[in-house]
């Protein structure tokens, strides 16, 4: 079974393009299972279940959705195997731009919205820079020039990536994306590793502190001037 992890900021067009991709896969007789990991709420399961394929939703609530994806991965893979899936697609909504959900053996697909401005690729981090494929959506509403600048910026951040120009409304680009789904090896839970190490998250805020004043904070604290300190025992 192959694993495709599709990540991207909320509303970037992940589901729109995946719906077209799954339709193409089904036409070719592939059996697909799909999982959506989100933070608080989603109606993507409704959109996917219209495709009549096994669909599962996980809500991370108050933990990082990327961490949530990783420590549930074994269960997700088992669920898809039980469905007899040849292809498991996991859609996740990356948020803080410090983590990336891709594992070593998956096909990592980052979906990015071209209308978010030419400086956004510089801010997205590992979600973008460790992906195998970058799908650019909503190019239909910006000028040719802006599309070209945007592409160039993406390649600066991830020179190895293959870029796919897609349109979530018309399905343009879905065939190109699907053609790459076969390229990754079969997923092996035991040897899968995260591509990008999760960042430090060991301050008192992570443990539930809500007070703002400086005296209440412990752990590894990075000051606004860039200086990093350790406060505590």
């Amino acid at each position, binding site marked *: 079974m192959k694993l495709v992890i599709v990540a991207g900021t909320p509303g970037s067009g992940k589901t729109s393009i995946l719906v077209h991709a799954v339709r193409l896969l089904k036409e070719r007789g592939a059996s697909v299972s799909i999982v959506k990991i989100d933070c608080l709420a989603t109606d993507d399961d409704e959109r996917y279940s219209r495709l009549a394929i096994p669909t599962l939703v996980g809500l991370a609530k108050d933990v990082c959705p990327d961490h949530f994806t990783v420590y549930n991965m074994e269960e997700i893979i088992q669920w898809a195997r039980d469905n007899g899936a040849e292809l498991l697609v996991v859609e996740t909504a990356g948020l803080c731009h410090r983590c990336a959900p891709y594992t070593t053996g998956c096909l990592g697909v980052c979906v990015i919205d071209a209308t978010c401005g030419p400086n956004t690729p510089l801010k997205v981090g590992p979600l973008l820079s460790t992906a195998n494929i970058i799908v650019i959506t909503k190019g239909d509403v910006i000028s*040719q020039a*802006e599309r070209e600048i945007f592409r160039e910026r993406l390649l600066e951040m991830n020179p190895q990536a293959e870029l796919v120009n897609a349109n979530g409304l018309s399905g343009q680009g879905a065939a*190109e994306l699907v053609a790459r789904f076969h390229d990754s090896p079969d997923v092996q839970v035991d040897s899968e590793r995260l591509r990008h190490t999760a960042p430090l998250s060991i301050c008192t805020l992570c443990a539930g502190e809500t007070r703002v004043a400086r005296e209440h904070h412990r752990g590894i604290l990075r000051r606004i001037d860039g200086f990093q300190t350790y406060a505590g025992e």
Partner: protein
Amino acid sequence: MRSWAMIETLSISGGYDKNGQFESVGDVQIRRGEIVGVVGPTGSGKSSLIADIEQLAQGDTPTRRTVFVNGRTPSREERTNPKKKIVAQLSQNMNFLANMTVGNFLRLHAKCRHVDKESTCEVIELANGLTGEPICEDDELTILSGGQSRALMVADVAIISDSPIVLVDEIENAGIKKHDALKLLAGFGKIVLVVTHDPVLALMAERRIIMRFGGMVKIVQTTKGEKLVSQNLKRIDEWMLTLREQVRQGELIEEVPDLVSALAEKTA
């Protein structure tokens, strides 16, 4: 300075319509320097045809059409490597969203395309030839009017993007000199496909592909008479543009220019 070799022929073939039938026009060849119109009712498949060409489709799109460039199948590299993209696109829905001045934006684009920075002045000059309201280098991109934006996009595609194939999707309500815009895009031997229901643009094309039910059903060659109509439409269009400016400037409009009375006499 041209970054691409021009293309001698672009051919499109083997498509099916929405009923799964072979399209009546099974094969179209477009030559270097040609302007071809794409017309038909809403939902007739005009945008799909444009999308097929944009992707250099190889039987892998819903219409199953195949696109050949210079009589051969484009390589995967040509289809997917953004640096090798030979198609530029322009449509009514497109906007400028970047928070930059016109000058900085064009210089950034020129840098991406490895084009001389000096060409940005040329772009602004050409754009100003297409719109009634002049664009300045220091204007913020996002405050440009619809007409200014469209004019700048046209000039930018002509000079900086400079791809041998240009796809235009409905620029009729743009507030620019459409006739001149299309001429500019078609310059230097480019192939231009223009989706339109605007007679100013449709009659400028040498041929037009008629679309219905998702398929190409007919190709109409523009006649001599139509070319004459086209010339008159061009004048009317330019008149409309000056009227637009006069309205904008708060002027009174009471004169009927000669071209309209001349046309009226002719039809009487």
